[in-house]
């Protein structure tokens, strides 16, 4: 998850599809997010680079749709349904995840272990 200013951000991502559950009047996904370009990035416990202002998953509720779909705590969300999440405010991120007319959200998330897994798989002799 390194970031070179001016260059496109490259990351190894995992595609996660979450089905929203109806809870009363709301559709919930079952996780909490933190971060955003209007927030203080130095307080983010999950990021490697403490200036990273991206959206991170800070909590995943037990047995919720997010956990079922494979979202883990500490994941950085890169895209939601095609919308970029690397340069959004906290409120914009929340809005994009909780659109009332969408039942399913397709996320692209990245985490450190993904990169290591890819590297390991590439280094293993076949």
């Amino acid at each position, binding site marked *: 998850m390194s970031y070179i200013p001016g260059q496109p951000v490259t990351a190894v991502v995992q595609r996660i599809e979450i089905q929203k559950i109806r809870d009363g009047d709301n559709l*919930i996904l079952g996780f*909490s997010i933190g971060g955003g370009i209007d*927030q203080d990035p130095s307080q*983010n416990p999950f990021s490697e680079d403490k200036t990273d202002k991206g959206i991170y998953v800070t*909590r995943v509720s037990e047995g919720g749709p997010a956990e079922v779909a494979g979202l883990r705590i500490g994941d950085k969300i890169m895209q939601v349904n095609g919308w970029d999440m690397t340069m959004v405010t*906290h409120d914009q991120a*929340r809005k994009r995840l*909780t659109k009332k007319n969408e039942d399913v959200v397709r996320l692209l998330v990245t985490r450190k272990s993904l990169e290591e897994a890819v590297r390991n798989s590439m280094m293993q002799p076949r």
Partner: protein
Amino acid sequence: MDTESTHSGYSHHSSRSRGSNRHSDRSRDRHKPRSRDGSSRSDRNVTITSPAPENTLLGEQNPTPADPQDDNWGETTTAVTGTSDHSLSQEDLVDFSKEETEGSVGKLGCQRFIPLALTLILGLLVLVTPLAFLVLPQLLWPEQLQACGTACEGLFLSLAFKLLILLLAGWALFLRPTRAALPRLVVFRALLGLLTLLLLLSYWLFYGVRILDSQDENYQGIVQFAVSLVDSLLFIHYLAVVLLELRQLQASFSLCVTRSTDGEIRHYNLGQLSIQRAALVILEHYYKDFPVHNPALLTAAKTRAAKHLAGLKVYNVDGPGSETVAGQSRAKMAAAARHRDTTHNELYYEEADYDRRVRKRKARLVVAVEEAFTHVRRLQEEEKKKPPGEVMDPREAAQAIFPSMARALQKYLRTTRQQHFHSMDSIQSHLTFCITNNMTPKAFLEKYLTAGPTLQYSRDSWQARQWTLVSEASVTSGLRDGTIFVLKSADFSLVVTAKAIPHIKLSEEFIHPKSHKFVLRLQSETSV
């Protein structure tokens, strides 16, 4: 007058023998308006270089040296030695009506008392006129006057008190001791005097025509007439206060005063004043702000400058026709640039050496003075019974301890080149003063360690007694942005530049007290 006929004869004679351009120069000079700022003479002194006839026309110098192109100078030159500063010429007579000063700061002349005399006469007129208005009807036609009762008495009272107030205020404002004699008369004062005179004259005119001639019987009207005069005079006094005192209180110019010899700079804020009054204010500040002018400190720079000049001599090998002043100086500058100059080295080491010497002497002086002061102690109350031979008054005590520090002090003063400012008597009296007032040795020494303001020293070491105001604009015109004038003294001059204080445009911005809102920068967590 002698000088006048001499002038005309000379010009007539020489117009025939000189060239045409000389003649036009001289006629231009004669028609030049005689500008009367106080230094016009010295201005012309400075600018004249050649041709010689112009000098003698103005009658300032001794007979000039011979003009090389005129062979019969012995017949045409007239020794005009009569016009010096002490004799009268035509120009001087014209100026007697104005207050012109040539003397030094302390000189008394009858010209100094003319404004005072005029003020007193005017004051007397002001006092007498309303009383005359009241008294004359009583004297001239007492039978026909109507007796007026309480209204008149009220008016008498008010007249008396207003007159008293007017006299007190006039005394406070106008009869202060004059602090200086200015080259030209102060415009505002003259204006006010004229206005007062005009007022009095017009009142007397009305009085004479309407009351004396027709022998008016309405005494109350006459008293009211007198009271109105005193009211108008009070308003003129108010105008005087505003014009003379209040107008220049608000600062609108910042004046930068530079001393020409050693570059001391001070800045003063003044209001709107005429140039001569501004010069007066600056001179008053000069005596208390500028450190005393010490010509002995400037000799080092002068010797360096002399060395630069004397280093190169230019010889002309091509004959007398090809020599120009500009060519010579250019040659000198080129040679000086190539010359490997070590004077900066000398200056550096000289200054370092001087600093060391001064500090060494100062250390010895401080120790000597402290030791001397320990020998003297104030007599305690319970010791009053000591034998009278041991009890001394301050002068004797000072004389007793002075010899132990005299040598160190004198050496220090010699090193810092201040010895001509302090005589032994002055040092001893200062020591007496310090002992009387329980001062420490450091307090005693401060006077000698730093150069104080000019007023602190005795009059003969001031070197700044007679001042001349040199200005391109008329000295009664007001200060403007960029006005420059020079106050010349015998040894140095003060160059004064005026800059206007900028017009400040202040705008307001209203902040509602409830508009101060803050948020904490947190990592907020939202569950989706």
